[in-house]
């Protein structure tokens, strides 16, 4: 635990130091990044130690806050999340040194680094806290630090708006968590996690509060509306941290809450499965309809949170139907997907940041042909795209495989599951549909951004980014491949963390690892064949004529970049098929006359939940509060009177 605290101290110290030294932009960046990396490295080592030894470490100090004690611990479950947090923030920090240098010329970099380190430290505190007050304080710090990072480019109207939505959403979520913890601590009089009691209310109350509270952070549909606004608005390395890691703290909260309950009702599992399918499918559909690279990636976070929720649902169903194999596979898949998504999503966001950095635009239909100009960014983005589409031999396939297999065990007659066809349809069919749509979406993004010819002038002059931005992407892409090829290891590594949620023997983890050996054998054969075929092709073409020509466009001799298929046209058939859920809108200014001068077509798919749920809701709130305007007199005496009256009423109520 000492090392963990050292890391926190390092992070905070580095942040403050960077704030103090902010006069020199270079020093501030350097101090911030070095402290973030050092802190991250320490946490990484310590968490690996916990994960491998299976021994948790804890610390308890007396504290004079009501309900509070400085009670912290790192058990294997926390360690999984701490590893992810440390790893991604480290790499994002390295990336940030170069990204921020040119991207925020007039900004005070010290402030940016201060909040970055604060965000990292608070996320680590969230997963280590073992006391409700400490947890909520860290949770709030995390929200605020990320809010200031999101609004870094506050001269833009859209960014201010995004920040505002983000702030409101986070606090609505926190309000639910506050109630949750108050109820949990009501009976025992303390908010220490090990003494929380679930006797104060029926268990469904806790469940609903936790799903709404933590789900807002995680980005479950329909609580996701802040996500596609806030993530694109932040600087790219911060988007990577937020999308890759921060939303996972919501999943952590849910898992931690599940450990408080002895038995889990089946309908909790079904709820998670339902949320998972809806978030997964809707998330990827919205992503398909987007025109902005970072917005597209943000919606994919919703999709992947859906996959994680599917795994959680399978796991909970396994627990409630007493099938340890199903529970182990579901929860391992869930945790592994948390890690995997952190890796490939931060990789993709960093890639998007590089594109933004090199071309100045993230609009898909203005990009193109970047693979030739930015080979490293392009290649790593390709790895990330294949991984997020759940394709072998990469890591995304491994976690989806585990979740799917867990669901199949529920169908194979080993478990007496009611409504099991529904399970097969929702989990396996859902994952297949999500996978297919994700592949469509990422072939679109990759193809339009990196392949073909540049669609606008600036893009043609783009150059590869510098070393500090390249290496984090290479490392992340390498990790994606590594996890894919060491798949059988992971159920065993994650076993202690799964055991924190549902007690089980390690033999089950070994059982889960066995099919993965087959997967790895298949992947190795695949890679071997690729190598052989590359050689075969090279041998065949040796001493033959290999020519260069223009693309054969069915006889058309002068193809121009603007004639290429665009992202919107690529996705159009799918968007139209699912128009019931997307309700895409077109603004058309049709060409008129024989020699039309002007014609415009805009297509967009606004978020339905935002339009039909939140906007009316907030309009209603504004309307109600405007009716209470008369309370606000503007005279200080009246306000003092209000306060006095409130205290008086509370007094009476308490002494009643």
């Amino acid at each position: 635990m000492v090392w963990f605290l050292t890391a926190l101290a390092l992070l905070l110290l580095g942040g403050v130091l960077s704030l103090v030294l902010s006069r020199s932009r270079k020093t501030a960046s350097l101090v911030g990044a070095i402290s973030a990396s050092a802190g991250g490295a320490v946490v990484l080592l310590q968490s690996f130690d916990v994960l491998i030894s299976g021994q948790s470490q804890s610390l308890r100090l007396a504290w004079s806050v009501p309900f509070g004690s400085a009670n912290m611990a790192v058990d294997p479950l926390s360690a999984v999340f701490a590893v992810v947090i440390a790893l991604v923030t480290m790499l994002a920090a390295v990336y940030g040194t170069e990204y921020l240098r040119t991207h925020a010329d007039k900004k005070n970099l010290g402030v940016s680094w201060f909040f970055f380190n604060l965000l990292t430290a608070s996320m680590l505190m969230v997963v280590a806290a073992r006391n409700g007050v400490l947890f909520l304080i860290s949770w709030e710090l995390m929200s605020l630090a990320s809010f200031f990072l999101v609004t870094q480019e506050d001269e833009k109207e859209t960014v201010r708006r995004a920040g505002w939505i983000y702030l409101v959403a986070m606090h609505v979520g926190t309000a639910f968590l506050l109630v949750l913890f108050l109820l949990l601590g009501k009976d025992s009089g303390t908010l220490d996690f090990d003494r929380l009691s679930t006797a104060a209310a029926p268990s469904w109350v806790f469940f609903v509060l936790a799903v709404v509270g933590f789900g807002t952070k995680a980005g479950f549909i329909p609580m996701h509306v802040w996500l596609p606004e806030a993530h694109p608005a932040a600087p790219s390395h911060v988007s990577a941290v937020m999308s890759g890691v921060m939303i996972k703290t919501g999943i952590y909260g849910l898992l931690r809450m599940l450990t408080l309950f002895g038995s889990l009702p089946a309908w909790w599992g079904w709820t998670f499965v339902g949320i998972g399918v809806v978030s997964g499918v809707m998330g990827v559909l919205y992503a398909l309809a987007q025109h902005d690279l970072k917005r597209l990636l943000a919606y994919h976070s919703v999709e992947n949170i859906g996959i994680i929720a599917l795994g959680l649902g399978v796991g909970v169903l396994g627990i409630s139907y007493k099938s340890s194999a199903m529970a182990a596979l579901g929860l391992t898949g869930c945790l592994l997907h948390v890690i995997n998504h952190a890796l490939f999503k931060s990789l993709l966001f960093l890639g998007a940041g590089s594109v933004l950095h090199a071309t100045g635009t993230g609009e898909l239909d203005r990009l193109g042909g970047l693979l030739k100009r930015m080979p490293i960014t392009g290649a790593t983005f390709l790895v990330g795209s294949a991984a997020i589409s759940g394709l072998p031999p990469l890591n995304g396939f491994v976690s989806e495989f585990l979740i799917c297999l867990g669901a199949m065990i529920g169908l194979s007659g080993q478990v007496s599951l009611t409504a099991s066809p529904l399970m097969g349809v929702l989990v396996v069919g859902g994952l297949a549909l999500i996978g297919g749509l994700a592949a469509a979406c990422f072939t679109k993004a990759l193809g339009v951004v990196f392949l073909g010819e540049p669609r606008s002038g600036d893009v043609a002059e783009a150059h590869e980014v510098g070393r500090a931005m390249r290496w984090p992407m290479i490392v992340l892409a390498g990790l994606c491949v590594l996890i894919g090829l060491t798949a059988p290891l992971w159920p065993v590594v994650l076993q202690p963390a799964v055991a924190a949620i549902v007690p089980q023997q390690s033999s089950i983890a070994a059982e889960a690892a066995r099919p993965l050996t087959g997967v790895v054998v298949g992947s190795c054969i695949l890679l071997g064949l690729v190598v052989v075929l590359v050689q075969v092709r090279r041998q065949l073409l040796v001493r033959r004529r290999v020519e260069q020509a223009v693309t054969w466009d069915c006889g058309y001799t002068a193809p121009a970049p603007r004639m290429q298929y665009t992202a919107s046209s690529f996705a159009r058939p799918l968007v139209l098929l699912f128009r019931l859920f997307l309700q895409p809108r077109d603004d058309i200014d049709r060409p008129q006359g024989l020699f039309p001068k002007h014609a415009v077509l805009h297509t967009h798919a606004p978020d339905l939940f935002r339009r039909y749920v939140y906007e009316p809701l907030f309009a209603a709130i504004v309307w109600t509060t405007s009716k209470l305007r008369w309370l606000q007199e503007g005279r200080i005496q009246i306000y003092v009177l209000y306060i006095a009256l409130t205290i008086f009423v509370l007094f009476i109520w308490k002494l009643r």
Partner: protein
Amino acid sequence: MTMLASIVHVMCALLLAPALPGVITRVKAWFAGRRGPPLLQAYYDLWKLLHKGAVYSKTTTWVFVAGPIVGLACAMTALLIVPMGGTAGVLSFSGDFLLLAYLLGLMRFFTILAALDTGSSFEGMGASREAFYSALAEPALLLGLVAMTAQSHSLSISGMVAAVTPVAIASPAGPALLLVAAALLIVFLAENARIPVDDPNTHLELTMIHEVMVLDHSGPDFAMIQYAATLKLWVLGALLVGILVPVRSGWWGVDLGAGIGGMVALAAVVGVIESTIARLRLVRVPQFLVAASVLSILALVLVMR
């Protein structure tokens, strides 16, 4: 012994797969009253392509070259997983059907990227359609296999297919198996770019799906694409034959022979379908594919009932 049978199956598939398109075109020619090309035409084409040079567009990158290579590697790996009737796949483990489905996904992913790499709007259009239809075909395939899992209580595709015995077909689960076969037939036709989803012989690039994506490939690259396509035909066909030809005699030679005979028969059936059914309008294809999913789900419901 079973391992030997599996290896023999893979060898047979690698050698015989290019004959399947020959059978299809022969049957079609017979229906149209023509003589048609020789049965081994696909082999001649491959031989010729392998001896040619190549032309690459200036726009393309390494992704364009990687497309055919990864595609063929995926198809060959998938061939190792797929069983032929009672003959198990070489590589068989719990959940291998997921690897099979996603290998086909990886193949498609790279084919689409290679098509987009040329910057041609025709190829972009084909890529868009391929992504569109395969996103709908994938759930149908996996749900069909889920229904087979529920029927056989096996998590491996070899176990699932081996459980389809004449006894199983005569049992109450029989109708469900036939439904799965119907769903798989739709997936088979769609994934292999066959009528009524796609017409491999259409003369207008605007109306193609698969063929238009590979317009720019030439020489050995194109040979790899053609060969991978026939292997994919074999892989998905073997699943279908595994259900429809339930010969499980116990002698692997007989089983395998029946399976390969079934493959030829399946090719002939495809020829009949292509000669008698018109191609669907593009807007109707999604419905056709959703119908495959519906059939699979129906089968699942029937098995679990």
